[in-house]
């Protein structure tokens, strides 16, 4: 987790990458999207302020997944017809990267899983089942979303994407999976649905009157 300090290529303000696995961050001052190459930092775009959002999680929130502590490092916010949700990037003790998805306070932790045989979007209709890691997952939702904003440090370059298809799957128990069709090839994330208390979240947002 070596910190690397540098200056924003756009406005010169200090930029810090707290995690070595981070590729992209957002400059707090000018809101430029800055990516880290082998040589230097590059500005690739600008993000607008994130839309109004009720998530209780924020950059810096700490929690625990089972016995593994983690910190929230960044976020991608998506917008779809019914509203928005967040994919919070978490970094576990030891450096592993994961995601905490937060859709109207429904939380789930998932990690990328390499799997060469993933279905195309049209091959994963509602109610269809797949077997991964010995668990049967059933498609529970298909959402067409577009990018609404980014914040903090992300492990890849990601901003200003057009509509992306997300397919969520769940098991009989609490297993959770997402098929992410952002790129040419689908990506699979597998994990578990978690509730707020089970994640032992600390340093969460406070709300007036609560």
């Amino acid at each position, binding site marked *: 987790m070596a910190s690397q300090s540098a200056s924003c290529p756009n406005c010169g303000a200090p930029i810090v990458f707290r995690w070595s696995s981070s590729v992209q961050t957002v400059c707090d001052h000018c809101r430029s999207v800055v990516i880290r190459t082998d040589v230097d930092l590059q500005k690739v775009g600008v993000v607008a302020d994130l839309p109004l959002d*009720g998530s209780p999680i924020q950059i*810096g929130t700490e929690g625990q997944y089972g016995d593994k502590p983690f910190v929230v490092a960044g976020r991608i916010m998506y917008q779809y017809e019914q509203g928005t949700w967040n994919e919070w990037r978490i970094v576990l003790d030891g450096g592993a990267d994961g995601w905490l998805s937060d859709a109207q*306070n429904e939380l789930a932790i998932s990690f990328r899983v390499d799997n060469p045989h993933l279905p195309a979007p049209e091959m994963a209709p509602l109610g269809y089942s797949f077997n991964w890691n010995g668990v049967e997952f059933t498609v529970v939702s298909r959402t067409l979303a577009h990018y609404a904003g980014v914040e903090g440090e992300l492990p890849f370059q990601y901003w200003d994407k057009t509509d992306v298809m997300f397919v969520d799957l769940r098991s009989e128990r609490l297993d959770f999976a997402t098929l992410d069709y952002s790129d040419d090839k689908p990506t699979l994330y597998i994990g578990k649905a978690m509730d707020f*208390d089970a994640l032992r979240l600390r*340093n969460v947002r406070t709300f007036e009157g*609560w």
Partner: protein
Amino acid sequence: MAEAQGRPVVSVRSVNCPNCGAATAVRTFGHAVNVVCQSCGSILDGKDPGVAILQQYTQAVRYEPLIPLGTRGKILRATSASGPERDADHEVVGFQVRQILVDGVAYQWREYLLFNPYYGFHYLTEYGGHWNVVTTLRSLPEGGATPGSGRSRSYHGQTYRRFQTASAQTVFVLGEFPWQVRVGETAAVADYVAPPRMLSGEMTADKEATWSLGEYVDGVDVWSHLSLPGAPPAREGVFANQPSPFAGAAGRMWRAATLLLALAALLWVMHLATAREKVAFAQVFTYDPRGIQDSSFVTPVFELDGRPSAVRVETATDLDNQWVGVGYALVNDDTGQTYEFAREVSYYQGVDEGESWSEGSRGDDVTLSRIPSGRYFLRIEPEGDRAGHPVRYRVRVVRDVATSLWFLVAVVLIVIPPIASTWRSATFERRRWAESDDAPAASSHDGDDDDE
């Protein structure tokens, strides 16, 4: 639960209605997709800084929520939910009135949207004084995507029976919602029950299905957890997932009844096995009705031994198309204690148009109860038709007689309470299902509703 660490607090905000200018508080900190102007009822876009109007309408009828918006309390404590979540405050932030139409009659129910910034959204629904706390499910129950398909559904190992399918229409909205609402919009809904729980599926025109799980709660608990004044509305009828106060009781009673019946059967069999049926006296007599009228006589003395027990006196005759009456008196030779009883025996038979018939019986038995032991004799006085034939009859006195009468009485008394209990439970269930789609044809109205 949260340490501020200097991070900014998310503030409560309010929006000004572009239609009427009134200010409406927004309580859900960025979750609100729709906000209803508390003054004119217009539905505003909660995410648009310019606060666009999404639906404008004049409300003919304004519905007042029984639980005012802004009410807070630890309402989840009324359910069987576990964990710190149930000890957290939830606030009423939205209110909807929805209805279904059955045979032209509108059945309305109310939904209250509950919010907690850390635990998200739940619902409190009410119909006819029956309350449910409802949570949206993320997994799909088995059985197909369309909510109404399948007579039963399975979820987390429990089977739910389909109660009703209907088209639900939104009639009135107030407050704010994390999804799009419009007055007049309809959704296909289906309810499945496994009291005290109810599984509900809802599908809007865009074919997206949402499933939720409701748990029945007592209105009294709702009122106390939310610290509401007054009393909750009175309950009408039996609700779809209302738990039966009788179900368990009937089963327990039948289990106890089985034990009791087994015990009774054992005692009865023991009684049958140990009843000696001892013949204390037997003799054959002849009675000629044409003879002298006062034909009474006494038998020799015989012994009735053992504990006080039943005595059976048998009269066996050779009657043929005749009747005879026998007046008995069983007299204790020592004490003079007398037991009187008169018996009548008649037997008629013949052939009529090729068919033989008979009426009556040639023999008669009578049982006397609790005769103490001692030396006894019988005084016998026969009587008959003056024109009849002589009758030969054998009189037998049997001591310590077996009877199954009391066993039958006991069986009846033992099963009456569990039968009553089962009947009460069945009546309750009948009333429950009378409101469902499966109601018997006699009641043509598919009453009630359900909730999300």
